[in-house]
């Protein structure tokens, strides 16, 4: 197997490009895809102060690594979610990555700074763990970006993430979510600009980037995300991708090219009714004088005694068994 560019020995095959690459030319391909995404969607300027949302996983560490390589001024923000050993380990990977490269990393701890963690919030809300987790992270990334004077927040969402979310939104025909599923969310109403430079790269390519670049990351899956719907969508799309390479890219990038412009008028509506939260001042979609969802979550979760990851996972597994049993009947 030979590299398409130099004809040297290849280390990875990329069926969607109908090509194989050596390490050097694979990295070059990834850099070009990120530069193209940044350029085509006007994501980041070289003078911008960038805040990267890092989790210790492959995507966020890879995008941070790439942005630094490409000459951007990028700091990191890690949120300690309190998901047992998983969180401890992911924090170690993130701190090591930043220390080895002399990068600035800020750590916010849900337990130390806000008095709760994700397992406890999951128990309190009775919703899926990713719901409390996603909401907490979005709020704290926004806050850190605004407080720190950053121009843009970067997340490590890749092509697989975006294609899976698009698939889920399309299965439900959730037109408002479809209209807003864009790689750039402009800064408005007190929310910072948010961008996704990895939308042209798959998660297999991001994991390969990390292996080649010698980046250690947390390989184990988040114990609370185990078996969630999002993973199911990714697996379904990968079945199609194996049969027809390039499916994920044409599905998501085709959506951006041809469907997002059609939905643009919907994306523009309903985004103007934003008021500041009376407790923290963050922008919220509620009526005048209301408290934002994050402050409500903190209030309820911090008042509850800490709940272990194992307890929440056990409950979630038994709920799934009951639901599966009910579905069979």
């Amino acid at each position: 197997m030979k590299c398409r560019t130099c004809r040297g020995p290849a280390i990875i095959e990329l069926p969607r490009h109908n090509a194989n690459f050596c390490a050097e030319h694979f990295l070059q391909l990834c850099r070009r895809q990120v530069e193209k995404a940044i350029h085509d969607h006007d994501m980041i300027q070289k003078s911008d102060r960038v805040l990267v949302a890092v989790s210790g996983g492959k995507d966020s560490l890879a995008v941070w690594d790439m942005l630094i390589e490409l000459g951007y001024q990028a700091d990191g923000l890690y949120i300690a979610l309190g998901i047992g050993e998983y969180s401890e380990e992911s924090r170690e990977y993130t701190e090591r990555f930043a220390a080895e490269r002399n990068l600035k990393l800020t750590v916010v701890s849900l337990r130390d700074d806000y008095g709760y963690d994700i397992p406890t919030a999951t128990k309190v809300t009775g919703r899926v763990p990713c719901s409390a987790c996603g909401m907490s992270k979005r709020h704290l990334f926004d806050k850190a970006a605004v407080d720190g004077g950053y121009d843009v927040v970067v997340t490590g969402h890749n092509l697989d993430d975006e294609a899976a979310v698009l698939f889920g939104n399309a299965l439900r025909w959730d037109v408002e979510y479809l209209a807003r599923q864009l790689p750039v969310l402009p800064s408005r109403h007190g929310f910072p600009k948010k961008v996704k430079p990895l939308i042209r790269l798959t998660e297999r390519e991001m994991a390969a980037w990390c292996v080649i670049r010698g980046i250690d990351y947390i390989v184990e899956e988040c114990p609370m995300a185990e078996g969630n719907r999002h993973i199911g969508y990714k697996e379904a799309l990968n079945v199609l991708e194996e049969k027809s390479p390039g499916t994920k890219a044409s599905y998501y990038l085709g959506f951006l090219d041809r469907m997002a412009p059609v939905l643009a008028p919907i994306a523009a509506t309903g985004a103007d009714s934003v008021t500041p939260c009376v407790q923290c001042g963050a922008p919220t979609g509620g009526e005048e004088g209301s408290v934002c969802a994050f402050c409500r979550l903190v209030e309820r979760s911090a008042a509850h005694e800490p709940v272990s990851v194992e307890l929440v996972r056990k409950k979630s597994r038994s709920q799934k068994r009951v639901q599966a049993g009910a579905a069979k009947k």
Partner: protein
Amino acid sequence: MKVLLRNPRREIEIEGRRRVHALLAELGLPRESHLVIRNGTLIPGDEELDKDDVIEIRPVISGGF
């Protein structure tokens, strides 16, 4: 050969030589969601694995939003 699998982390022993894509197919692991690593280096699908090799098959799907 020794094969390290993840999620959960475990090790299995496979008898005889194989190409990488044949091993993945045998284990029912899709190529699109796995990488195969030997001595810290990626190895492509057509590479022949030796009976004395120690390899890691690393899943790449993550579930966060």
